[in-house]
């Protein structure tokens, strides 16, 4: 008879058994604790005589927090990826799907089972860090971020965020993609503080960890008052919950859309909320690594528009897919009696309302400084142009996606192509033409209609002091939108 399982979730229990169960988990934790003790002892004995125990403990604490981050981000996410990949390659996923397990149970199992050894190691690390911070005299009150318990709670939120994102990505890609790379890049960006260009993103990545580590090195204290820790933790947990729900949907079958229906709108709404909150929560203190441009409100709002537009593609793409699938099924299935889904145009309008409505609602009166002064535009005009460009770009994309889905085309490359062709190329072409015709005045002259025919170019023109023909650019964008909607309406399949 097997030992009584603590993990009641079937997949969690199965993965725990596959990792060797209690025997190996406790053995690993014990071996790790022993090795850490021996290494610390040897290192301390090898230190110069003038290094005090307090300084040594402070340095060791820094090292163990790094180790802990690596365990959570690298080992934890990889364990989840490997577990899901194995279920796909052995086709155990089909076995799970035929069982009485709901998607939520399965997603929870993937979160808890493969990561059980990481949790055990984290517990050991917590004990080590508590002892070390006691020796270093860093154990403060609740607000003291260097206090190991709060630090571990903070890192726990980060782990839940990384693991739920990994679960979703692995279920979407049959376990092929690891999110570790993305977290490494974000970690670097966070360290360089360039991430503040997009305040909402800065809020969900553990940038405060970097600051805390820096403060440890400089023997100063980072506190919860200094850094928006609680907001960040809420953001991470809220996004984690959304990813978890999406993963539960995706688990049921490969062709099921992860963010279909209300969940897609929830994701957009949440991202808009975080984007808005990010503006008031991120530190506005330029440093050597992060020059003033990263803290420039005009740049930040453009980056926020771009990011929100990209996220808004998710519900719009789901709506176009549902519409195309409905038409295809209706044509082939005599028994099909499902109601026609709402038009993707409605989805675009709802998405824009959620994305920009929430963003401006959260910004409140703080929106005005984010838009640079223009001679020919007042603030509300600038916002109206930006919103119009936002609507047009989603409508255009929706039209093209509807055509692509009707033809059964994979949309990944289409999205990349669209972003290159409609967002980047016009701006690049405008700069190139200027460089060829008038290289001396390239930085001084205003931009042409080509520049504002890209939605990104238009947002840049509206939000910064750059001079460019906004209305003409909008007209070009509207023309492309009409073309895409005409193509979509002609699609009959």
């Amino acid at each position: 008879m097997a030992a009584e399982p603590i993990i009641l979730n079937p997949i969690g229990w199965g993965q725990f058994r596959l990792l060797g169960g209690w025997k190996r988990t406790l053995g690993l934790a014990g071996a790790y604790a022993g090795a850490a003790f021996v290494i610390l002892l040897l290192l301390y004995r090898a230190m110069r005589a003038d290094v005090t125990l307090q300084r040594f403990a402070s340095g060791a604490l820094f090292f163990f927090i790094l180790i802990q981050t690596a365990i959570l981000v690298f080992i934890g996410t990889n364990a989840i990826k490997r577990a899901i990949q194995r279920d796909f390659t052995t086709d155990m996923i089909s076995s799970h799907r035929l069982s009485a397990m709901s998607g939520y149970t399965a997603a929870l199992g993937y979160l808890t089972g493969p990561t059980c050894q990481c949790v055990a190691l984290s517990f050991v690390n917590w004990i080590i860090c508590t002892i070390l911070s006691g020796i270093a005299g860093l154990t403060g009150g609740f607000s003291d971020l260097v206090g190991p318990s709060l630090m571990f709670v903070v890192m726990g939120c980060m782990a839940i965020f990384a693991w739920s994102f990994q679960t979703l990505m692995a279920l979407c890609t049959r376990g092929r993609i690891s999110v570790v790379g993305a977290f490494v890049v974000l970690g670097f960006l966070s360290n360089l503080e360039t991430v503040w260009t997009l305040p909402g993103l800065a809020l969900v990545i553990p940038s405060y960890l970097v600051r805390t580590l820096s403060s440890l090195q400089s023997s100063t204290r980072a506190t919860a008052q200094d850094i928006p820790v609680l907001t960040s933790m809420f953001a991470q947990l809220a996004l984690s919950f959304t990813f978890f729900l999406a993963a539960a949907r995706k688990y049921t079958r490969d062709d099921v859309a992860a963010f279909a229906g209300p969940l897609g709108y929830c994701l957009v709404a949440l991202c808009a909320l975080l984007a808005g909150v990010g503006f008031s929560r991120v530190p506005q203190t330029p440093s050597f690594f992060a020059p003033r441009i990263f803290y420039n409100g005009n740049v930040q709002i453009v980056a926020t528009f771009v990011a929100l537009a990209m996220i808004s593609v998710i519900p719009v793409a789901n709506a176009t897919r549902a519409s195309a699938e409905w038409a295809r099924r209706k044509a082939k299935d005599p028994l099909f009696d499902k109601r026609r889904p709402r038009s993707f145009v409605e989805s675009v309008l709802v998405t824009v309302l959620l994305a920009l409505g929430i963003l401006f609602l959260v910004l409140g009166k703080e929106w005005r400084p984010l838009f640079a002064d223009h001679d020919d535009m007042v603030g509300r005009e600038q916002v109206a142009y930006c919103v119009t460009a936002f609507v047009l770009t989603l409508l255009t994309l929706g039209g093209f996606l509807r055509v692509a889905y009707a033809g059964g085309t994979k949309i990944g490359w289409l999205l990349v192509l669209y972003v290159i062709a409609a967002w980047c190329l016009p701006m690049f072409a405008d700069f190139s033409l200027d460089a060829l015709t008038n290289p001396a005045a390239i930085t001084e002259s205003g931009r042409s209609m080509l520049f504002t025919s890209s939605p990104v170019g238009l947002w840049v023109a509206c939000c910064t002091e750059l001079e460019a023909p906004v209305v003409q650019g909008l007209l070009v964008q509207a023309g492309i939108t009409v073309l895409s909607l005409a193509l979509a309406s002609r699609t009959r399949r």
Partner: protein
Amino acid sequence: MSIVLAAEHVRVEYGSFVALPDFDLTLSAGNLLGLIGPNGAGKTTSLKAIAGLIPMAAGRVNVLGERVTPGNTAALSRIGFAPDTPPSYDEMTVEDFLRFIGRAYRVGREMTEERIDYWLEQLWLSDRRTSKIKALSRGMKQRLTVARTLLPDPALVLLDEPAAGLDPAGRVQFRKMLGSLRDSGKALIVSSHILADLHEYCTHIGIMEGGKMRQFGTVAQIVHSQEENRCLYDVTLARMVPEAHALLGEITGLSKLDIQGRQISFEFEHDDEAAAQLLARLLAGGLPIARFAPVDHDLEQAYLRTGIKQVD
């Protein structure tokens, strides 16, 4: 008898390739359907579509009145599906793997242990209880997959090539087990190329080709489906005779003539008097006949009579 499975107008597409154009199937409790057909006929696809593992372009599948859709565990958990390549966790022991399945299907702990004992006994795996799955032979893994499929006590059992890795004794045992499952009121579909076995335990046979059900009926209906008064004859000559083809070709009522060296087969009237006259005529024609025998009606003959060329 209550209807367990109702699949209507099921259509499955892989991109532009239509694997199942329009598949219908109804099975009641106690029905055991043998699906036969060449590779690529759509047998596995139809089983996967019934199990809700692949998306359908059209149609619907109901199991015990519950619609099979992604995430509808009420319907999905009533289906037991054993694919031809057995999925398992190779690092787990046999009993741990079955315990895992018991948990996944919310079978109580005591009931799980009871069923593990029962199915390991039934499938000759009791002595392998604590072995790791990776140490099992292919046949044992196949039996474990069957145990895994039957442990949650599903109402509809789908078995894709279940006997492929079994030894002769295992096949005999397996046939008996399928018979008892059929008699216990489960609905079963077995896809197999071992037609002699299917003939023995199936209540129904479906012959598939190109994603379509070419023939469907009870075993008796399928076996005697075509020209009941005709039968296949096997003839062996003592030596090769070049004129054999011309001589046999002249005989009225003889069809589907096939000559492979000294072996000749053809269809002719299933009547002793007619057979005796035919034999006399062949001997008079100078054919050195070493063996002349009508072949009894069986599933293999029925399958060959359909004219489906590709044989595995």
